[in-house]
């Protein structure tokens, strides 16, 4: 189902190649193992800022040229930053393959730091923050939740960074971060699409192999101490509807219980038949939407719940109903049919990720970075199949304890006077 050619260059850069000739296009994904967990107070958000700076000119391809050349060759790009990784994503017709290797190598090796461009990009990122956090109730509450759920570990600050830090990064901060994160040995390259390994490997050797390896980012030493009691945070701001978010600490992606977390996620929030949707949206009609779940992370992560509370309803009632559902999970074994339903959903979702070359590139890179190797993809269906009703009870009892939770509530400061 998933056939991959794997190669490690002499500088430590890993290349994964997946052939797929459905459309004459290629997805090239570069996973750099640097994210907001590799930052420090005062320079938060700098990995995300680099996501932007990597498009602002290098030695051979100057300012704007990465985008200009790429779009002219029929391609498009984007990038995303998380707490753990920064990922550059290029999609293009196969005719642009060599150009992309040349341009990616140029910016990994020789990025330029023009002070004028740094200032302009600072404005762009401030605007992004204003629109995704300050003018967005969800973004505001999510930021406060994490700042409360973590007290020691870097997952406590937002990936986009605190507003004051965005204003304050210095040129030295930027250059040091670039050296730390953008080493070829800190990167996994995934190529998926209308290519063959015989085409790709010579290009990887020509363009990427001469880039010297460097010391990888220093290990993140801080371990979040166990939470010893419930934490709560309130946000008061103008809004029409209240909002509620909860976080429970869980293990990292390599935790052997991770497949159990995924099944719990599907039982609780996967599809309209999920327990939380049926209970909170349909039966009790307390919320408009019940979202959440787990995401793979390098350090111990979170089980997250997010609720858009209905008008006239109280977040406290949502909490009460949620706790009942979480307790039911640890007290009563999940009926065999419901467990099978969740397993079917996960398997179908897995196929959905394989529909596109982008989906395949992203899946391969994520497995390589988070789960200890892309080959784990082949084990994933069996690992899900193995999870038992007893596993779910055991894990639910472990993670969903009141002392392990953080609750964030958005309280509307003024209600719009709308008639129903």
């Amino acid at each position, binding site marked *: 189902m998933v056939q991959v050619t794997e190669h490690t260059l002499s500088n430590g850069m890993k290349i994964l190649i997946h052939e797929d000739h459905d459309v004459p*296009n290629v997805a090239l994904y570069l996973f750099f193992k640097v994210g907001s967990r590799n930052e420090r107070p005062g320079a938060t958000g700098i990995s995300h800022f680099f996501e932007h700076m990597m498009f602002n000119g290098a030695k051979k391809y100057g300012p704007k040229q990465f985008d200009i050349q790429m779009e*002219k060759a*029929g391609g498009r790009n984007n990038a995303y930053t998380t707490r753990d990784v920064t990922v550059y994503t290029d999609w293009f017709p196969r005719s642009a393959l060599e150009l992309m290797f040349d341009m990616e190598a140029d910016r990994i090796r020789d990025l330029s730091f023009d002070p004028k461009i740094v200032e302009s990009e600072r404005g762009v990122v401030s605007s992004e923050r204003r*629109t995704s956090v300050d*003018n967005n109730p969800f973004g505001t509450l999510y930021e406060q939740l994490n700042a409360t759920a973590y007290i020691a570990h870097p997952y406590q600050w937002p990936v986009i960074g605190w507003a004051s830090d965005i204003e304050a990064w210095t040129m030295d901060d930027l250059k040091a971060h670039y050296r730390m994160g953008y080493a070829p040995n800190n990167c996994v390259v995934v190529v998926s699409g209308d290519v063959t390994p015989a085409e790709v490997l010579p290009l990887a050797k020509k363009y990427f192999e001469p880039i010297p390896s460097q010391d990888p980012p220093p290990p993140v030493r801080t371990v979040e101490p166990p939470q010893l009691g419930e934490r709560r945070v309130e946000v008061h701001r103008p809004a029409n*509807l209240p909002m509620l978010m909860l976080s429970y600490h869980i293990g990292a992606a390599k935790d052997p219980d991770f497949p159990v977390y995924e099944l719990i996620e599907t039982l609780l929030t996967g599809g309209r*038949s999920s327990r939380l*949707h049926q209970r909170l949206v349909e039966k009790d009609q307390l919320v408009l939407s019940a979202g959440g779940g787990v995401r793979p992370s390098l350090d111990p992560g979170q089980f997250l719940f997010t609720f858009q509370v209905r008008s006239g309803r109280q977040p406290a009632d949502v909490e009460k109903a949620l706790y009942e559902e979480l307790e039911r999970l640890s007290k009563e074994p999940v009926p065999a049919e419901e467990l099978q339903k969740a397993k079917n959903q996960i398997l179908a979702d897995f196929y959905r990720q394989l529909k596109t070359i982008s989906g395949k590139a992203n899946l391969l890179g994520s497995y390589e970075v988070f789960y200890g190797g892309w080959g784990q993809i082949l084990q994933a269906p069996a690992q899900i199949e193995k999870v038992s009703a007893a596993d779910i009870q055991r894990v639910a009892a472990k993670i969903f304890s009141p002392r392990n939770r953080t609750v964030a509530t958005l309280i509307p400061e003024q209600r719009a006077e*709308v008639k129903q």
Partner: protein
Amino acid sequence: MKTALGILLMASSISVSAQVRLPEFTREQLPNGATLILLPRHDVPLVSVRAVFRGGAESEPAGLNGITSVTVEMMRRGAGKRSASQIDLDLDFLGASLSSGSNRQSAWFALEFLSKTAPEAMAIFGDILAQPAFPEEEVRKVLAQTADRVRAAKDNPAAAVGPYFNGLFYPSGHPYRHSGSPDELSVTRINREEIQKHYRRMAAGRNLIFVASGDFDPKQFAPLARKIAGALPPGEAFQPPAPKDPRFDRPRLLIVDKPDATQTYFRIGMPGIHRRHPDRIPLLVANTLFGGRFTSLLNDALRVNAGLTYGATSIMDLDRLSGAIAINSYTPTATTVKAIDLALDVLRQFAGKGVSQEQLDSARNYIKGNFPTDRLETSDQLCAILAELEIFGLDRRDIDGFFQLLDALTVDAVNAAIRRHFTPDNLQFCLVGNASAIQKETAKYAAAAKVISIKTEGFAAPDF
């Protein structure tokens, strides 16, 4: 000299020269008037099915805007012998995913399922299309949820600016004046009886386009599809309205006051084209260069050079009726005028100067390079594009000939289209932000100006 330069540039650039073709498919008309299209392909063990009904916002009675989206949602909330929660449970058990929605000219359901579950998944789908029960209790629940969704949308100005712009741009009585979602007023008028009436008009064989693509054997699958698509009564084919196109004799400015906003979200529009307009191909190129990609003139000026925003784009509607070409961006409250002035400068220069051969080549490559992954890669994309051709009365030549038409475009043709449609006079400005901070300085954009509170019901503009 110009020609020689053009040839040189083309020779030195990477050309995206391959043509695209839709894969082979079958198309038949069923006795009840429904159109059935089947396109088998076997890359992953999934099947996508799409049922599209002609109508959408264009078919909504006055005052009941958004009723199509409510009707579509209601159809899955109890059908045949299954209750709403039984449908959800049965679909999830199969690992199937059902999505639905409506736009300006249609309502649609998309179902994706594992190929081995085709008989079970299709049976549920058939019930949803032909046997919806519209239980009273579910109607009440959906309408109450819908009312809250409208409230939540107004908490997010980035999402609210689109509906407000439509309320300003399209004249009263035009079906595109509403964005396809109910507002605080229409949601009070929608009820079970109206939903049933709307369903009966919509769910007619003559209005149905049924498309399937994916991992199936047509011999086994076609009878299944015929049974479901053929089960609806023939009914009457929807007759679309023919309102006058939006035209303006003066600029107008609407400020939607959200006092707590720290940014201004703006959309500035002018009359554009429809999906079958002869200027579509040159305008696709023009809009790509103006605001349709990252290196576009708008994004380059506002984001890359000035750092005033996270993004500046232009949106070109391509619907059955003529829509807008609109600039869309946002910026901190304090730089509102600076950003809008800059956007207008870019527009005026583009309208005056047009594009060069090098720009045309770049945009053409960009459109061609992205088209396969945007529209032709997956079974659900293929279902969507085949249904779209039917809705607009087009056939496969629209796709198979697309790259040839792009290749044949000249600079003169693009610039002539720009002169016809990029008209910087009489622009329509819609701003969502802190009115007290921006009202005075933005007054220069239009003598005709209005301010409304975001708390005012609905998204329509007041009379100017």
